[in-house]
């Protein structure tokens, strides 16, 4: 197993802050744009499991003190990956158990999707540099 740590634990803030909606946009001034998408904090997996087009199945969603762990299994050979996300990723995630997950590789990381909906993003170093979330005022 090859462990891929990501330097920016702050990524977890995306989830820890309870971020919401990607859908809201205001007309003229702005609007909320906090991403709904869970971002992986770390991944323990054979590297090749995150290849483009790979089809995985969510076999378990485990809540831990360090966040939520999704266990993914590759259909072709049973190889497994553990993706650790923030605690908020547990919300509704149990419904994903048994779902087929498709891996899309982009230059900044990997997008996991189920039924064409993105369910998580696993950033590489380039992607991690693009992610940061800090609420400054209450």
């Amino acid at each position: 197993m090859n462990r891929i740590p990501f330097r920016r634990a702050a990524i977890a803030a995306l989830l820890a802050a309870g971020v919401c909606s990607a859908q809201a946009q205001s007309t003229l001034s702005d609007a909320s744009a906090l991403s709904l998408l869970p971002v992986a904090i770390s991944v323990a997996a054979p590297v090749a499991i995150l290849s483009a087009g790979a089809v995985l199945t969510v076999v378990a969603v485990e809540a831990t003190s360090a966040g939520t762990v999704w266990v993914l299994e590759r259909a072709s050979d049973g190889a497994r990956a553990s993706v650790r996300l923030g605690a908020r990723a547990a919300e509704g995630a149990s419904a994903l158990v048994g779902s087929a997950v498709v891996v899309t590789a982009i230059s900044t990381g990997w997008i996991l999707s189920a039924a064409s909906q993105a369910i998580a993003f696993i950033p590489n170093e380039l992607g991690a540099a693009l992610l940061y979330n800090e609420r400054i005022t209450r």
Partner: protein
Amino acid sequence: MRHGCLIAALCAAGLALATSAQAGRSCEARPPSASAVARSLTLAEHTAARLDASGAQVVALARAGQNLSEYGLRYSHFGLAYRDGAAWRVVHKLNACGSAQAAVYRQGLGEFFLDDLFQYEAAIVVLSPDVQNHLLPVLRDNVRVAQLNTAAYNMVAYPWSVRYQQSNQWAIETLASAQEPAARTRERAQAWLKLQGYEPTTLHISALKRLGARISAANIAFDDHPNEKRFGDRIETVTVDSVFEWLDRSGMGGTVQVIR
């Protein structure tokens, strides 16, 4: 944090035709499509590369979240982006899902574009060296970026009132306070903006549309606008396009650069 996304999405349409009463409806969390995430992150990556190449330390950065062509506008929202070591961060004000409140955030370019964008297009205006020098320490300082923030949010806040504050308004008032040390209050920042020739966009919104929008959304109000303008269907507010024009006209920023 409450999710008021659907409301805000309705508000987007709201100025045009909101008549249904959606106020108070909670945000419907709908996951983005994989392709939307890929396009947003690609735009973030391209923007980072362009910003790196610009040599700038501080820029105004805008996104196109809505089709505003009806109003003659191209961009919906902007923040102040600055270099933080090898990465870029954007300080901007966000309205939490259609509520009447908003807060200031510091985010990565990824979060800035991870949105339901109307067009996968960004715009930057490189600020003049003088403005960059004044803004950079402000953007790094959580106390100073919060100094002129008003939590009460109104998407079409009147630019010369302090009752509400929308996102673009926070950004130019913060720029004003960075440029003019005496502008420590919103009133003074607004006075400085007037003095420097900033002119807001005038939207022509009928009474019927105003009524519908006000009923349907917590984050739209018109009671901060002067009666003679409001009842004349003239709603002035701070838009990205008006700010970019002003930055160029005043020499405080360069021309708009589009990134796709």
